[in-house]
């Protein structure tokens, strides 16, 4: 099975390239990148072929591609892949507008190819364990959820992460979609109301998108949930950030942290302690699912539709923050 990567604009392309090379029966066919120098660099790092264009890569008959362009530039690459009849996994958020997300879903549906959204938290071992517990009724009815997906301001990785046009916004666009998706998955219910407040205090000298965000979601089944999506981790924090949920139910409370399985390491030569993660790799499991879905010609466990629904929620946060009122979906 041959998988290609379209664009290295998103840094997750690096993790995917690394993971693909380790998957049995999978070959990293090559990469394409509109940034020639970046493409050459990563083709060298991962010892793979650099195609002159995405079209050229798609002509080389990949079994699937991963789209890692800037958020606002997912659509053309997904449509191109669909036209070539190639299954796609697209980086989150699926797009920056619902029109784009809808067009991407339709293109893949018309072509009869898989569209998977890269939501690695669906494959996190701790989160999966809690999903099983919930499905077995271990918590009874879930009344409320207090969730956090905070991180460092990501400008140092890529400038476009803080570009309103290319990223679609700041911390809300970057972080809300993960927990919006986890909550939909956990609760088997859709969001009916969204309230959000955002601000730009942290890093306001460096960026012009929001860095602070608090969100309240209400689900059709009555459950309410907050999301803290802030880029509130200082640049010398021991890790990039984290994702965790407290679920308050009929039978008690469950707390789950997707990134707690770390060693803490102190180094005389380092400015701050660092975490050495030892938990299972969710990215690897997500790619395994993509490859299995292609092989078995079935829908993946997390789809383009899931990406669309999460985007719908993130976009509603911006609307609510502007209005100062909750908005209905």
């Amino acid at each position, binding site marked *: 099975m041959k998988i290609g990567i379209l664009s290295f604009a998103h840094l997750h392309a690096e993790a995917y390239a690394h993971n693909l090379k380790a998957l049995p029966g999978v070959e990293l066919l090559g990469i394409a990148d509109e940034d020639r120098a970046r493409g050459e660099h990563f083709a060298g790092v991962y010892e793979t072929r650099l195609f002159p264009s995405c079209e050229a890569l798609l002509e080389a008959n990949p079994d699937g591609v991963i789209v890692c362009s800037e958020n606002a530039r997912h659509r053309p690459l997904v449509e191109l892949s669909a036209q070539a009849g190639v299954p796609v996994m697209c980086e989150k958020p699926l797009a920056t507008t619902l029109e784009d997300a809808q067009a991407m879903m339709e293109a893949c549906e018309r072509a009869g190819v898989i569209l998977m959204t890269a939501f690695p938290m669906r494959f996190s071992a701790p989160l999966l364990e809690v999903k099983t517990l919930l499905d077995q009724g271990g918590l009874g009815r879930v*009344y*409320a959820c*207090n969730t*956090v997906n*905070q991180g460092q301001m990501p400008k140092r990785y890529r400038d476009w992460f803080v570009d309103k046009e290319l990223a679609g916004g700041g911390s809300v666009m970057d972080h809300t979609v993960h927990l919006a998706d986890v909550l939909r998955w956990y609760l088997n219910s859709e969001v009916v*109301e969204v*309230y959000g*407040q*955002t*601000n730009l*205090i*942290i*890093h*306001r000298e460096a960026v012009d998108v929001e*860095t*602070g*965000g*608090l969100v*309240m979601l*209400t689900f059709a089944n009555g459950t*309410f*949930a*907050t999301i*803290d999506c*802030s880029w*509130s*981790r*200082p640049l010398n*924090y021991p890790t990039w950030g984290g994702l965790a949920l*407290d679920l*308050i*139910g*009929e039978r*008690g*409370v469950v707390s789950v942290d997707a990134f707690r399985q770390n060693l803490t390491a102190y180094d005389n030569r380092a400015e701050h302690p660092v975490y050495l993660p030892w938990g299972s790799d969710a990215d690897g499991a997500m790619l395994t699912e993509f490859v299995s879905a292609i092989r078995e010609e079935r829908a993946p466990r997390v789809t383009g539709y899931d990406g669309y629904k999460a985007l719908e929620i993130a976009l509603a946060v911006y609307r609510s923050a502007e209005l*100062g*009122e*909750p908005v209905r979906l």
Partner: protein
Amino acid sequence: MRVGILGLGAIGAVHAAAWAETEAEFVGGFDPVPENAQAIAAKYGGRAYPDIESLLEDVDIVDICTPTHLHHPQVLQAAAAGKHIVCEKPLARTLEQGREMVAACNAAGVRLLVAHVVRFFPEYRRAKDAVDAGMIGEPAVIRLQRDVFQPRKAAGNWFVDFGKSGGMMLDLMIHDFDYARWVAGEVKTVFAKSIGTSGMEAGVDHGLAILTHHNGAISHIEGSWAYPPPTFRTKFEIAGSQGLIVHDSDATAPIQVFRHQQDEDSAEVPVPASPLLESPYTAEIRAFHRAIVEDSPVPVSAADGLAALQIALAAMESAQTGKPVTLEPLPEVGA
């Protein structure tokens, strides 16, 4: 200064222990359950009074530790008697009551000190000092979390009687509403959701609130009576333009005990405890006593108690109506 306590339940007993550490003369207290007042007198001196009137005759300061709905009439009564007052939080059951109480104390020329004890907990105090010193720059996103079990009482559990206590959001979350305002300034809007917390012996009481401050900071407040006893867990973080302060009571508990036998003797009412040489309740009562003796300002004024009450009531209203609530400026707070 002679001091007596009105209401000798869980908090009244803690306050009695705290007053015993001060130079005030503790005269005893009144409780509708005479045994409660007798037990305190046996331990800290003074006597069990037969009624409020006789207690008020004997004191300069009355410390009101009764259920929330009684604060209003009792504070008015004490003010009319010309006594300085320490009043347990929340100041009152409604904003109108609170404003009347503040006005009555002002008119009578007596001090009204509201026992927002969280301001005297060293971890909260230390964080506030660090913020004031500029350590994290300007506060931006504040998270405050207080997770405990639903208060239990052998009889007359007023905590789960909405009319009396106002439920978990007024009784418990008010601590963190006060702290959020202390750290990040006046609050403009409140949006909140809750489950239970209207009494009815509900098994679960839980609330989540998002506050927007006038200076642009936003706060996330969680309060819970949804945990099993003996849980008392607090967490907070204050993220600012230059850094982050994080606290987790589980992570900072200096003692862990692993017993083969489970204890079933946990308290009726959750009271936080980390080993300290001076209890935060004692620090609070000392500060209040000093303020009254010296006629000096206190770290938590009647206006602060009123402002915290306003935020909590707004959160309850928002949870009820599903709409954000915009706070009217309070003349008493001068904001």
